[in-house]
């Protein structure tokens, strides 16, 4: 892919997120000028960058959105939710397009049709007047017939009569230019006659002589005294382009036969409006004006930045830039001694006056055969230093954007370094035992210690790179909640807390789907309609809280609503009806346990299936995916007061601490998080309840599972020996595992089971140990299920 396009796509993502967020905030705080500006800027940047590529639909759509935002920014329109919907829809469509562009490097074929409707909707609040740019893109600019100006008299009357007759017969128009060069223009290497010479399809040149020629003796040959009138069939756009460096010295009118005839017969012009403004307006929308607007924006951001531009050269340069921009826009202002506040007001006024640029620059056909003069430096870029050292620019820490895959690769390498490093300890043992050199063994161990420290630091550094704030996971919810609440007709305030809590990117990514499930559930089942809420004596607007807080090496994410809560009786009855619990359980389950039933596979309380949730695949999927991450889910609920679901997740999934145990000569890993304690129990203290071996520990009966039997590995413990038992806690229940031997704890990089072994649910993954052995890490929940089946 073209690197420029790749860069554009990368930036587009950020911009789209910015626009989305900005629009949602705007809906809440309508009319916040800073917010409007922010969204507008993002949309504008988007449009600007899209112009670099051949995506005309994209440019047109963003342009329409930008126009609407510009009107909002200028205070001509108030943003309502219909407009927000349209704008969001527009940017959603763009997001879809960009996904297509990423894959195929072109827009989908349907883009034009999809965009057309949206563009019309976006433009409709602006009124008919602003649809002109759309018409212009179709290539039929509406001709503006001006009133004939006085300077037409400088053409000879005979010729004017002829041309008026011709224009009348053919119902066409002609452009007339009055070009008044500055008197000192020769000193700027300008040659007005040369410029006139380049006017395409020049029909007639007339000369405006000075009112009085100076005496030949006093004549200064370097003062330009004459000016020109030109009649041409060239298009307005061509003239604008040709005279783009001297816009203040020319006047262009478009005349038809009627206007000329009225001028010849000495009648006053029909239209009362000032011809100059009519003629000059299209002139403003040249590249020059676009640059002028850019300067104004830069000046505005420089000025609004507190304390940066106060006095001195910076203020002068901003003042200078604004004056130049104003001149280019045809609205000269005098800012000689104005302070920052006045400047800001002027900038705002100018920005409001500057009409938006047409979607596409007027085509410059017919220009190819005309020699274009070497472009003299343009007025606005000359002021560029004011922009280049603009204090409003990015001066923060430099941020490097790196592909995720590269960071993953780095992490992998750190893992392998750890494994290689761990090999040194085995080498040290071998040096002592096989080669009998204690000294060498000690030196290897010293080396190991040094490497260990560096490897640890390296690992911590890479982990730190992978850390992302929870705001990444929360980011999509304002939009989701808004859309769903509108659809469900509920009023919901979303509150997010602790977005800056950090967690590993894998955790953040994996958190996305469970959170969406939980939020949808809350919206659909938990939160009542406004009427129900008011009837229950609650505030009409429901509150949905997303909160994150760090807890040691775990992060806790809570989704809480103040809705109707879970009814334990109803849950129990439903679970019984669906055959999920037995009749005894129906009688004996506590309320807390009943609430937990919602996590059972196949459970659903919704009486009707909506498209949001209620198909009974929700909560058990949440629990499964969170447990896959090594986390836990709990739900607390109070009937009538709300529900809160709490996810506890490890901060990082990259490195897992496991306890190594061996069973029947084979070593296995068990996540340390689950381990409660290790005990050696004398054989005599083991007892049996029904068919289950149990052990009494501190007054609690703990069932003991023979791990070897569960894994189907033949092995018998020596009669009468102490039983090594590893006590683990799974789903808040303690279970003892009978093992052969305990080993140490190790940090491992867990690789998921893949390929032929993918079906083996009893293992959550494999890890490579320092001595080259492959360690299988147990998925305790599955292992216990297996043990129950074996028994």
């Amino acid at each position, binding site marked *: 892919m073209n690197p420029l396009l790749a860069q554009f796509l990368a930036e587009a993502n950020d911009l789209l997120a910015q626009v989305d967020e900005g629009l949602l905030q705007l809906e809440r705080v309508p009319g916040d000028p800073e917010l409007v500006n922010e969204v507008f800027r993002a949309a504008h940047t988007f449009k600007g960058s899209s112009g670099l590529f051949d995506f005309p639909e994209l440019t047109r759509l963003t342009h329409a959105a930008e126009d609407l935002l510009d009107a909002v920014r200028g205070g001509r329109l108030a943003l309502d939710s219909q407009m927000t919907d349209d704008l969001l829809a527009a940017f959603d469509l763009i997001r879809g397009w960009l996904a297509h562009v990423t894959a195929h490097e072109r827009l989908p074929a349907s883009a034009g049709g999809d965009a057309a409707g949206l563009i019309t909707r976006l433009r409709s609040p602006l009124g008919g007047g602003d649809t002109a740019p759309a018409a212009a893109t179709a290539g039929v600019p509406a001709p503006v017939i001006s009133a004939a100006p*006085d*300077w037409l*008299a*400088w*053409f*000879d009357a*005979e*010729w004017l009569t002829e041309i008026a007759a011709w224009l009348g017969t053919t119902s066409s128009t002609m452009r007339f230019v009055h070009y008044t*060069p500055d008197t000192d223009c*020769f000193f700027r*290497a300008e*040659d*007005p*006659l*040369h410029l006139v*010479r380049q006017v395409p399809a*020049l029909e*007639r*040149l*007339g*000369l*405006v*002589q*000075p*009112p*009085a*020629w100076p005496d*030949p*003796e006093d*004549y200064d*040959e*370097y003062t*330009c*005294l*004459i000016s020109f009138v030109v009649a041409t069939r060239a298009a307005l756009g061509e003239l604008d382009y040709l005279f783009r460096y001297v816009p203040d010295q020319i006047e262009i009118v478009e005349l038809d036969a009627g206007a000329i005839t009225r001028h010849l017969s000495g009648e006053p012009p029909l239209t009362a409006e000032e011809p100059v403004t009519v003629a000059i307006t299209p002139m403003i929308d040249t590249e020059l004006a676009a640059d002028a607007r850019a300067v104004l924006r830069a000046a505005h951001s420089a000025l609004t930045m507190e304390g940066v531009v106060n006095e001195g050269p910076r203020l002068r340069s901003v003042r200078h830039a604004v004056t130049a921009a104003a001149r280019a826009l045809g609205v000269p202002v005098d800012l000689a001694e104005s302070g920052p506040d006045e400047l800001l007001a002027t900038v705002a006024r100018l920005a409001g006056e500057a009409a938006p640029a047409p979607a596409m620059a007027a085509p410059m056909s017919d220009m190819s055969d005309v020699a274009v003069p070497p472009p003299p430096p343009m007025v606005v870029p000359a002021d560029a230093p004011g922009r280049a050292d603009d204090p409003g620019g990015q001066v923060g820490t430099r941020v490097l954007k790196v592909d995720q895959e590269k960071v993953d690769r780095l992490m992998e390498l750190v893992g392998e370094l750890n494994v290689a490093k761990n090999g040194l300890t085995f080498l040290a043992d071998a040096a002592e035992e096989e080669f009998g050199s204690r000294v060498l063994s000690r030196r290897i161990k010293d080396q190991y210690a040094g490497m260990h420290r560096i490897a640890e630091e390296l690992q911590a550094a890479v982990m730190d790179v992978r850390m992302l704030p929870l705001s990444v996971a929360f980011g999509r919810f304002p939009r989701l909640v808004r859309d769903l609440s509108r659809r469900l007709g509920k009023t919901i305030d979303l509150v997010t807390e602790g977005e800056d809590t950090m967690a590993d990117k894998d955790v953040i990514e994996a958190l996305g789907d469970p959170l969406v499930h939980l939020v949808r559930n809350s919206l659909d089942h938990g939160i009542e309609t406004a009427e129900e809420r008011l009837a229950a004596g609650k505030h009409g607007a429901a509150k949905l809280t997303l909160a994150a807080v760090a807890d040691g090496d775990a992060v806790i994410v809570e989704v809480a609503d103040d809705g109707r809560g879970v009814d334990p009786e109803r849950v129990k009855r439903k679970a019984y009806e669906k055959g999920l619990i037995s009749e005894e359980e129906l009688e004996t389950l506590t309320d807390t346990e009943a609430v937990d039933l919602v996590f059972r596979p196949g459970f659903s309380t919704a009486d009707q299936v909506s498209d949001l949730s209620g198909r009974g695949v929700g909560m058990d999927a949440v629990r499964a995916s969170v447990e896959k991450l090594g986390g836990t889910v709990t739900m607390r609920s109070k009937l009538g007061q709300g529900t809160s679901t709490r996810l506890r997740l490890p901060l990082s999934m990259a490195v897992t601490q496991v306890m190594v145990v061996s069973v029947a000569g084979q070593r296995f890993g068990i996540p340390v998080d689950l381990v409660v304690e290790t005990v050696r129990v004398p054989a005599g203290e083991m007892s049996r309840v029904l068919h289950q071996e149990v052990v009494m520990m501190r007054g609690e009966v703990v069932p003991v599972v023979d791990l070897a039997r569960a894994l189907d590995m033949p092995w018998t413990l020596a009669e009468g020996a102490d039983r090594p038992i590893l006590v683990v806690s799974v789903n808040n229940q303690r279970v003892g595992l009978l093992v052969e031997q305990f080993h140490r704890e190790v940090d491992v990089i867990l690789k998921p089971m893949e390929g032929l072994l993918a079906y083996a649910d009893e293992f959550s993954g494999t890890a490579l140990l320092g001595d080259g052995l492959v360690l299988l890490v147990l998925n305790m929940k599955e292992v216990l299920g297996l043990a129950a089946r074996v028994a």
Partner: protein
Amino acid sequence: MPLELHEETANLVGVVTVDEVEQLAGWLRTAKRPKVSLRRCNHLHTGALQALLLFKPKISSAPNDAFLAAQVLPLLTGSNGPAHKQGSDPP
């Protein structure tokens, strides 16, 4: 050399730039009955045109250049256009 100046006649050759304007004006000032040939002139700087307009030398031969011949020469010779209205405001 764009200017070939003689006692009473001058040939303007090729492109007459702003650099030649002073010399041309000086010659027009001193020459008694100046005659100027534009035959080989391809372009005339505005300053040169203005000098010709002011001193009104006799144009001895028309330029070959199409633009000069069609649009500029009529302004100099006053054969049409408003040149006769010199010094007056437009109506």
